[in-house]
């Protein structure tokens, strides 16, 4: 590059309007942020629509979570005098275990129905698939979490619908599905998908679990924001770090597909 090239006027990027349908590569890369968000929304809406028609994920997750809360309630009722002592742990264990069910179906259903190749053929950046799937999982898991809170309200007679607790659940579940969607994609094609995902996911989720339990316990103890803020900090840091890392690594998963 000489001086001439630098001083010369840059050539126009697109001399003629591009016919998007005829240029899948251009469609994949061009369009700016809004178009990208549109692609994310398309993947998200596809998952939500499939769920509304098939009612596969949400119903399973809800049934399992209600069952799990009841079993925990029965198990601890014999030994624990006050429900406040175990409620935070029960809440987060049930959320994490239930989440695995939904995450497994997220890519597992695509593999089982043979629709994964078509999804990958879509002329969008792979990260758009990641974010779309992640948001769909976020919606399913949050909806289930609300059901869990409602069941716990009746079984343990505890009102956990408090702003700080809801904020903690939102941040925790964002981090959870952020890593979970990446791992679900990693395990989708392996032989022991259903058993492998929790083994991969749960140890990595320890920071979310510990902070979540501490936050819910803090809310139940009526602690002030100053005592809770560092836990929120950990959750926010977890979400930020892992969503960025997942965004960077997601492209590598199906590079040979």
């Amino acid at each position, binding site marked *: 590059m000489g001086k001439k090239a630098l001083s010369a006027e840059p050539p126009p990027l697109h001399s003629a309007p591009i016919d998007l349908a005829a240029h899948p590569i251009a469609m994949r890369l061009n369009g700016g942020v809004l178009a990208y968000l549109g692609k994310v929304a398309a993947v998200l809406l596809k998952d939500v629509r499939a769920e509304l028609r098939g009612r596969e994920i949400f119903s399973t997750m809800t049934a399992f979570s209600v069952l799990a809360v009841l079993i925990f309630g029965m198990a601890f009722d014999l030994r624990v005098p006050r429900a406040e002592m175990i409620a935070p742990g029960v809440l987060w264990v049930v959320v994490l275990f239930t989440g695995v069910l939904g995450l497994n179906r997220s890519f597992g259903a695509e593999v089982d129905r043979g629709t994964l190749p078509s999804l990958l053929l879509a002329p969008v950046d792979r990260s758009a698939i990641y974010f779309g799937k992640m948001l769909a999982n976020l919606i399913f898991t949050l909806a289930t979490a609300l059901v869990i809170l409602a069941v716990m309200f009746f079984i343990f007679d505890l009102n956990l619908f408090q702003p700080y607790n809801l904020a903690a659940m939102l941040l925790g579940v964002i981090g959870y599905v952020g890593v979970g969607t990446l791992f679900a994609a990693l395990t989708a094609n392996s032989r*022991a998908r259903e058993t492998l995902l929790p083994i991969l996911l749960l140890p990595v989720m320890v920071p979310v679990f510990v902070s979540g339990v501490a936050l819910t316990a803090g809310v139940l103890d009526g602690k002030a924001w100053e005592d809770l803020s560092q836990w929120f900090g950990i959750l926010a840091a977890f979400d930020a770090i892992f969503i960025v890392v997942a965004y960077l690594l997601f492209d590598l998963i199906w590079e040979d597909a």
Partner: protein
Amino acid sequence: MRSTMPQPRPVGWRGIDLLQLILSALAVAAMTVSMWAALYYAPPASNLAGDEQLAQRIFYIHMGCNIGALAGFLMSVIGSLVYLIKRDLDWDRVSQAAIEVGLICGMGTILTGMFWAKPTWNTYWTWDPRLTTSAITVLVYLAYLLFRNGIDNRHTRARFASIYALVAFLSVPLTFYSARIFRSIHPVVYGAENVDAQGGFSVGPTMTQALHINLIGFCILFSALLVLRWRQLRNEDAVAELREEIA
């Protein structure tokens, strides 16, 4: 890497694998010196008595194992990153070998720590941040090995395992910080003082020497195991490739 005609292995003294011999001898020597330093050379701690006095000698081995685990997990990150950039399966083998050796060292750290904790803390286990983090780290890397075994294609396996190793490694510091906010009773021998620590002791010059001997000794052991395992994995892949060619 492979010639079409497999070379017959030389017999007699030429058949001796020199690298393996040297590495094994070095590791044995290093471990002998380390054990001598930990059990004999290091002086007893001045402020401890009874079982605690005996148990404090495990500290040198505990730290040695710990350095091996740390080296292994750091090495696995390097191996995974370089694999994802260069796509050379040798680096994936580095990562696998490092994690296997690191796991052994990590389990050694936990076991030695538990044997030390029983006389000192009067319990084998507590949810101290370091204990929590070490246990979770070992679980994460056990999951890594299970995950690898579930994938058939050699390159897919390397790629997926590298992705998982990177994500998993990033979660370790967060696990530590989240567990740290709970009160800690683990003694901090180097660095900041922990006022709540129980069973700690200050390190004199002879103890420092013994500790350094152990750290170097375990580094040598770690390197020997890593190189040998790496070569073994390489040979395994070569054999698998030959099998595929025949089939």
